[in-house]
């Protein structure tokens, strides 16, 4: 086992020197690309993703563009009986670059794991976006993974949220995501195990963990994905830490958006609107 978890109990420091409740550095930008309706770039530690949103647009035009991919999973059939025709369809396509992991690996686009990620992101966002305002249209979210170091799903959700904000699609609140783990191995039921916030790749390989995404600052969980064996008793602690981490991530995302907005007002790209007054933009 490359990760020596026994060292943790000595200094309570993780492999990369963080404490149990520390996030890695999150750096995000929005409006990174002029050609798209919305775009974002997000780094969580060494995990780097880019997101480009086109739409809401006529779904027909997407034949030649995003939609023809076998990977684009339509997630329209989600949300209180919203028929596909009644709300905008949220189509997500993910490209994992061959150079993103340590060993060069090419991921086929029909890979079930990627399809699952796509459908998760699509369903999570569809519940937060006001898709009913754009009937008979499509929102295409295309995500690029440039570098992977754990917490991939969380990074993808955060980047997609930011890009949707940039695209100006009305939404209830941010969907912010992060991962949480536990220092216990799956079999051991040791009560002393600490929950951990924001797992990197190494920790993800060795320790049980889960990805949580919450809506806004609330405790309401939009996405909860756990792919490793863990004792039921560990779940509560991990979930609590994860939800708390999501709140921190939401603040960071919000700061990025406000900062960009403030700068755009300063540069005169956009006029300072009436609604912006209560956003302390000055």
């Amino acid at each position, binding site marked *: 086992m490359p990760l020596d978890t026994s060292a943790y109990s000595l200094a309570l420091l993780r492999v990369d020197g963080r404490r149990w409740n520390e996030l890695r550095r999150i750096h995000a930008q929005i409006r990174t*690309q*002029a*050609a*798209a309706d919305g775009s974002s770039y997000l780094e969580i530690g*060494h995990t*780097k993703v*880019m997101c*480009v949103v*086109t739409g809401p647009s006529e779904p027909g035009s*997407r034949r*030649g*563009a*995003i*939609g*023809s*991919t*076998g990977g*684009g999973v339509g997630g329209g059939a989600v949300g209180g009986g919203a028929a596909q025709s009644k709300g905008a369809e949220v189509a997500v*396509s993910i*490209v994992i*670059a*061959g*150079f*993103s*992991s*340590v*060993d*060069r690996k*090419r991921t*086929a*686009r029909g890979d079930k794991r990627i399809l699952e990620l796509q459908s998760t992101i699509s369903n999570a966002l569809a519940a937060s976006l006001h898709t009913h305002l754009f009937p008979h249209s499509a929102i*295409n979210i*295309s995500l*690029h993974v*440039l*570098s992977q170091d754990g917490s991939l799903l969380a990074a993808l959700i955060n980047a997609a949220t930011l890009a949707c904000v940039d695209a100006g699609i009305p939404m209830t609140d941010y969907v912010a995501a992060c991962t949480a783990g536990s220092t216990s191995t799956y079999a051991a039921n040791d009560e002393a195990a600490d929950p951990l916030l924001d797992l990197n790749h190494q920790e993800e390989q060795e320790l049980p963990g889960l990805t949580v995404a919450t809506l806004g600052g609330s405790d309401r969980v939009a996405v909860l994905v756990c792919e490793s064996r863990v004792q039921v008793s560990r779940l509560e602690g991990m979930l609590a830490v994860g939800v708390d981490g999501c709140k921190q991530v939401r603040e960071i995302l919000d700061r990025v958006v406000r900062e960009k907005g403030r700068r755009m007002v300063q540069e005169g790209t956009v006029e300072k609107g009436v609604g912006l007054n209560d956003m302390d933009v000055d």
Partner: protein
Amino acid sequence: MASTQHVLLSPAELAYLHAALSLTPPIRPDGRAPAQFRPLVAETGILPGTNGSARICFADGTEAIVGVKAEVERTRLVDGATAGTEWKEGGSARGEGEDDDGGDKAGDSDWVELTVEIPGYRDDDAGTAFLAAMLSEALLADGAFAKRLWINRRFHWKLYLDVLLISPPLSYPLPLLSLTTHLALLATRLPRLKSEGDEDPFFDDDWAAARHLFPRSSSSTTKESARPPVTLLVMAVGNNIIFDPAKEELAVADVALAVSVAEDTTAAATTAATMDLDDAAAPAARSLRLLSIRTIDPPSRLTPPGVPNAANSAYGATTAQKQPEARTAEAEAVEGVWRAPRGGAKPLVMAALVQKVLEKGGVADEILDALDAVDLG
């Protein structure tokens, strides 16, 4: 793929564009000169996890990222006959490597794998495959590139180039992808070899000591320094030759070519040898070599033709007249009525296109100079 993308322009708009581009000098919709490239933003070394990476943003918002990864791979021994005879040269030749054209440093085109990802297109889409083939064809055309990946007789570097288009494909992405690939390769560094001869390769851990795949000589332009090729998109409307066409311009192209050029290192080497003394005075002229030409099927062929007033029933043409009229309208051009180009390009135009790319101080020269200026980190 993108070359046959649907163009949402009416025949009247197409006719206008075509007319404007056929003028001498042509008037381009964005006011560029015929040989002028769109402004671009380029950076390298954006991904520390790769051996080399680059990102280029064109002014129209299209953006591409290229990452290069290298892995050591065992060479399949093809000729067992010569295997034992001459392995003395191996490791020592690597030091000053490049201009040494020792015969046993043969490369194999399998050593390079290039993939293109266009969002929204399947990776086995014909257009994507064509783009990948064009890019790797240019790279491997002269066989010199694969030679750089030679480690020793038993091992070589396997180079993986992953070309990602980040933005939706607004214009035909070939030049963008090619320039980004060029930059990424320039920035690519391979760990310094510590082992000697044909033993199992063993590398220096120090990334600072890593060598560039395309070494930059200190006096950058005067000494010949090999560079990866670039592929340019050139199109012709009438007798006008237009570089880096935007989507609308490509929609009225009579002919579109993808031309791959590289610096002619062999020629440069000989001139450098003869003019060794006064190479400081030698101008920055590089001789360019044509590597490949591919015709691109321009989307203009699929555009609907305009209907001249004479054949338009709204302008009093009767339906009886319409059929034969329409046929003659196809044969002869009516001023101001769009007609999709038929047939191939004139040989003269083709020759002029290639000439224009290769000429000294021409566009290819300019591009290479511009890319030279990018800081390789």
